[in-house]
């Protein structure tokens, strides 16, 4: 396998060991999933949003402070980890390729989860789910998982996260952690798709992957921009003012994502392809966004 050579597998093993030593007692299979209303042990609160079940509103708190907060409980059951990798053509952009980077991150997360006896499923998506690997368990399944990722190819047109999420929830799977690894360049917006997952009580963690050239493009003059997803051509004349405007919009996009995730209690990791995937994973584990 070109993408996942023996060094890569060694690095995954190392990450797994580090995760065990550093995060002992907090790894996936040893912890319970956070299921709203499914358990009896109170975990924490989160803000109420439209569509939430009124039964879990903390009325006492509302009476005292006038704030609508939902109570969250822990449920004791095996943890299911669903890793969703964006396979749209936009992921082929950058050096290194965002798609390769996303696959490496997905493989690393899966390996750590498998090593801790969690169940892991893998999905590839673009304008719909283009490939999937059913739930699997055990460290010995890592090879088939890596092969799945190796075989995955960028395809489809524009990213449609909402359609993907709808497809995903209709497969009537058990609740668990959904790790979405994507650039989130969904023309319809990323919120609707993530909301669908959230409403279905999935614990969502978003890994937003971007290339530095997307944040600071070096484009000036008369150009023909080719959208690698839709293959649309746009003739433009890019000036310094346009460039500054672009950068501002890109920055606002990240701020919006961050704000959304904080408000909705979703985990978020913004990953530049310049940061090695193993460093990124250690960072994620330290922050405890994906695992606890």
């Amino acid at each position, binding site marked *: 396998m070109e993408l996942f050579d023996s060094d890569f597998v060694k690095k995954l093993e190392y990450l797994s060991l580090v995760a065990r030593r550093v995060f002992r007692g907090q790894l996936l299979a040893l912890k319970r999933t956070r299921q709203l209303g499914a358990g009896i042990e109170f975990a924490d609160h989160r803000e109420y949003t439209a569509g939430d079940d009124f039964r879990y509103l903390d009325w006492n708190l509302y009476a005292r402070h006038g704030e609508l907060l939902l109570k969250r409980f822990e449920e004791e059951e095996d943890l299911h980890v669903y890793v969703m990798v964006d396979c749209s053509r936009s992921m082929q*952009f950058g050096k290194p390729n965002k798609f390769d980077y996303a696959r490496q991150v997905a493989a690393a997360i899966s390996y750590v989860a498998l090593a801790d006896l969690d169940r892991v499923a893998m999905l590839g998506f673009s304008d719909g789910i283009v490939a999937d690997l059913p739930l699997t368990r055990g460290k010995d399944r890592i090879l088939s998982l890596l092969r799945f990722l190796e075989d995955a190819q960028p395809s489809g047109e524009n990213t449609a996260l909402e359609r993907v999420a709808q497809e995903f929830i209709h497969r009537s799977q058990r609740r668990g952690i959904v790790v979405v690894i994507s650039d989130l360049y969904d023309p319809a917006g990323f919120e609707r798709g993530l909301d669908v997952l959230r409403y279905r009580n999935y614990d969502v963690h978003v890994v937003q992957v971007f290339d530095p050239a*997307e944040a600071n493009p070096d484009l000036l003059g008369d*150009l023909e921009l080719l959208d690698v997803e839709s293959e649309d051509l746009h003739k433009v004349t890019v000036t310094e003012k346009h460039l500054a*405007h672009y950068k501002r919009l890109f920055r606002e996009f990240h701020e919006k994502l961050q704000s959304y995730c904080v408000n909705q209690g979703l985990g978020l990791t913004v990953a530049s392809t310049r940061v090695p995937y193993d460093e990124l994973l250690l960072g994620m584990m330290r922050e405890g966004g994906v695992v606890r």
Partner: protein
Amino acid sequence: MSFAAPSMFAWALLGLPVVLFYILKIRLRRVPVSTVMFWQRVFEEKRPRSIWQRLRHLWSLLLQLIFLALIVAALCEPFFDWEVLEARRIVLVVDNSASMAATDLDEGTRLDRARELALEQVAGLRHHDDMAIVVAGTQAQVASGLTGHKKTLREAVEAIEQTDGPTQVADAVALARRLLQGEKEYEIVVVTDGAFATAGALTAEDDVRIARVGTDADNVGITQLQVRRSAVDPVGFEVLAEVRNFSDDEKEFRFELDLDGGVVDVIPLKLAAGGTWRNVFNKSSREGGLLEAIIDTEDALKTDNRASALLPKTPMQRVLLVTEGNPFLQLVFEASPLVDLDVVDKMPTDGAQGRLLVLHKNIPETLPKGRILIVDPVTSCNLFNVKDPIEDPLITEQDDDSPLMQHVQLTNVHIPKARLIEPKVKPEVLAASLDESPVFMRIPRTDGDVLVLSVELEEGDLTLRTAFPIMVSNVLAWQTGEAAKLHEAAVTGSVTDVPLGTDAKVDDVVAVVTSPDGKTRKKLARVGRVPVGPLHCVGTWTVSPQDEPTQLTRLAVNLSNPDESDLRAREDCVDEGLAATAGLGGQPSWWYLVLTAILLTATEWCLYQRRVVA
């Protein structure tokens, strides 16, 4: 409109590749991006609204084609018919005489202002115009021939130097007319201060235009300083000084006379408006030196506040008189305080030993070396034979040009007896009788000329006349040579002969003439004299043989010119200003085309390229 180089239109074919490149250029560089959703928002918010933005690429092509058209048109050198028909020939006469050094303007001298005006005229020259520059100070000279090359003309104007010489505008205008001979459209522009006598007449000339510089400034100047030897005192000098007030106010100042830096005399003066003061000073100096007259006035012209003259050193002369006795001859030498006289009756065996030898009556058969004055010889010698006496020789001819005969008048002198002298070489006859018998002559000799006066002194009234001591005095000056000769101070603008500092009247000796401003020129001496001039600056000039630089002859030069000292413009001199300058800088059509092309390039850069660095 016509084109000087229509073949250059071939360059218009360059338009084809421009259009070709334009077509290629609109196939834009394709850049893949992961998403255009940000770019779409960028351009939706800043959608091109004006026609300019929509047609900007087409405008770019048009600008490039216009640029090419302008350059091609410039290469073809277009010109209008009137440009050729109205081409003018202008001669710019710039006055750089002494009065132009006046500092009556706010900044610089009158010549500085004249240069500015001249440069203005050069800058206003039209494309087909030609101009020449003539300077009119000291000597009319062409500084630049007729040319339309402005750089050459500007350099010629900037190279015009101030002189202390007189205004030669009339000569300069005549020179200008000679330059313009055969031309139909011409104009002579004289840039001057109008401080010369013929300024008014010049204004009336149809082809002359006067551009005046300067104001009617006050000035006091030394207009004369001359020195001559005293008629009564062998070491004395008579100094004539004249000072004039060229203003409408009374002026008070001091007149000072210095000799080699030491004050000789100081006279406080108060001169009425337009007044003149003249005085003769009797001074004596055996050592001589540089005599300077200075007036301490703060006026616009400094050149005439100082004048100088050179007093020669008067050396003692040793004379050996060999005579059996003649009181007149002995007394005439003894009367001079500068003569150390030895009188003997026989010729000494050791010769004259550097003294002037005066032989009376008896002479040796072979004359000794050195200069000799022989009076009334009775015996022959190796240079001449003494013949029969001449009775009552009437002097009818004398060489007044010879320094030996200066101020000597022998025509009325009664000479009852003289002797006929027959020289063996051709003599220079200084005085001769009616029958052309020489009475006083100079016989040239390689080892010292010999003067022979064949008059019998005991007879007649020559010894009683003033001519006799003057003649002896001339002989003594002749013996002293040029060193003791008094040279009159010259005036600027004049040409004079300066002795080369050696008595030998040689030809083809190269002499070095050094002016007070440090410039040197080589001249060829003729008969021991070097022609110097026209003298362009005041001060002390020096002349020396090229091979003997220490053998200096000095010459004092003064302005001494009332016309130059009078800084007030003549009343009838009207300022007519410069000749008409060309509109819009007088540049040719192609120049404007190139300028437009450059502006177009700048516009193109601002509109299309600036974004790269903005």
